[in-house]
């Protein structure tokens, strides 16, 4: 019995194992399975579960009840505009500041110290930055004290528990992230291209406008997307530094309250899905417009 089946294998060419190995599936490939299964279980499944759950309202009613409630209640749907109103200006400002600084830092020999300093707010995290800013931006904090002492402000500025508190914390934690991403794109471009442009008589502005900008546009688009997505999911600083019932009631606060204050996981999932959808929509819009820009090699033309 056994020998006949082996014989038939020989007749029909390589065994199943060999055929799979030829396609790249063997014991080594199986090593990917534990991690992949783990993520399917704890990342894909929760998303699918949340999506289904969002169509099964806690209070009953039609399957779209959560979504129609979200878009009917200004206290809920306004969170989208409020979050965008925080995240888009801060992301744009971060990017506009990061680009000239990255162009300057690119020329530095020892970038390590500067990048190490800038990594600080990212590693310390938003909670600690919020805690620090509560002291620092307060009416008696060092910032207001300095402003009043130097006569730059007649009275302490109100920077806490409003829009600006969250805005400043998003700058402080967002800028290093945007800057380091931008720097990695800027340094990835062959300086020979700029030298060639300079040889041909292009000034600094022309070199930036006609050489760097077209090459960097795709990188800037990705930087904007990643920074925006981070800023859009702002949570601890919006609670601690902002006015979580008023102008900085961002969408993550609405989702959190639905889940952990009203224990309505169905509604919370619906809000999380809307949050994900808005992020996705903006990212897709940005990346789609990437097709309008130059795409090609960013190194010298020797390769």
């Amino acid at each position: 019995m056994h020998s006949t089946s082996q014989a038939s294998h020989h007749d029909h060419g390589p065994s199943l194992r060999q055929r799979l190995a030829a396609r790249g599936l063997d014991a080594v490939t199986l090593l990917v399975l534990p991690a992949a299964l783990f993520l399917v279980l704890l990342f894909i499944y929760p998303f699918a579960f949340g999506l289904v759950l969002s169509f099964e309202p806690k209070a009953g009613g039609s399957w779209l009840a959560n979504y129609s409630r979200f878009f009917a209640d200004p206290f809920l749907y306004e969170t989208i505009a409020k979050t965008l109103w925080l995240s888009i200006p801060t992301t744009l400002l971060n990017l506009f500041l990061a680009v000239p600084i990255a162009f300057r830092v690119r020329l530095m020999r020892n970038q390590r110290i500067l990048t190490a300093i800038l990594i600080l707010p990212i590693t310390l995290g938003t909670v600690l930055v919020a805690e620090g800013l509560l002291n620092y931006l307060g009416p008696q904090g060092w910032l207001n004290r300095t402003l009043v002492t130097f006569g730059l402000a007649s009275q302490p500025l109100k920077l806490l528990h409003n829009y600006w508190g969250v805005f400043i914390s998003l700058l402080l934690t967002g800028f290093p992230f945007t800057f380091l991403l931008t720097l990695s794109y800027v340094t990835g471009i062959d300086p020979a291209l700029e030298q060639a442009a300079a040889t041909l008589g292009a000034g600094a502005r022309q070199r930036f406008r006609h050489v760097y900008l077209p090459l960097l546009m795709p990188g800037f688009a990705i930087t904007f997307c990643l920074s925006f997505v981070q800023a859009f999911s702002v949570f601890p600083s919006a609670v601690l530094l902002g006015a979580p019932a008023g102008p900085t009631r961002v969408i993550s606060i609405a989702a959190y309250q639905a889940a952990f204050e009203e224990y309505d996981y169905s509604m919370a999932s619906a809000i999380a899905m809307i949050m994900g959808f808005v992020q996705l929509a903006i990212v897709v819009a940005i990346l789609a417009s990437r097709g309008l820009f130059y795409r090609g090699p960013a190194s010298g033309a020797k390769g």
Partner: protein
Amino acid sequence: MIRDTTIGAKLWATAVWAVVGFFIINLFAMIGTVVVSSFGTRWLGTWLPAGWTTRWYSSAWSEFQLGDVLIVSFQVVGLVVLISGLLGVTAAYALARRDFPGKKLVMLLFLLPLLIPPITFGIPLATVLYQTGLAGTFWGVVAANLVPTVPFVILVMIPFIEQIDPKIEAAARVFGANTFKLFLHVLLPLLLPGILASLLLVLVRTIAMFELTFLVAGPTSQTLVVALYYAVFAAGVRAVQSIDAMAVIYMVTTLIWLLVALRFVNPAQIVTRAKQQPAH
């Protein structure tokens, strides 16, 4: 390098450095306020506190049960580092060495948890964990924290493994090494710098990972950063200086590991994780 020497270019350079300087001054002043306040006796309406003391540290330690919180934090971080190392390095090895149908899909699966912010996937994840009863427990916190760290290790390790010549492994096989020996005597020594770097980054990121821990932690499974959030959130209940002392303890635990990490990795790696890996 091209250096412009016109006045306009010099003014522009000065302006750029002024912005950098302004940012760094504010950053250090912000950190400085926390440190100064944690050592001050009473600080109202002056540049510096009226006197200096260290008693806030002992009161913070007992008020916030920092001993317990720190033990939980280190256990969570240690397990997350260990498990994400095991799962991440093995998966990265398979992805670096083999091309198989559906590989792009698998790469996407590993890329998404890094691109989607934790609070977005954290809420459905917390919902599932609450339904299975894992949320609020120690293992629930570990599982939630592994979701972004496993892909992170994979994406950092893939280029690292790709640069090791497969002929070295083939040679070891020829000389009769079995898979275990091959791993222990050939791959591990070669991969050690990469593993070390990625795990240190995981460590730093997990200490500071607020959102996921916050969403799934119960009273006994809080990490330091979540305890800090609750303390700041309920400000007014405790003395400000006490919370600041806790914040300093948190900063010190993070910064020690950051300094260790910076010896082994380029700081930019902490941020540019998504860009580092080549598209497959």
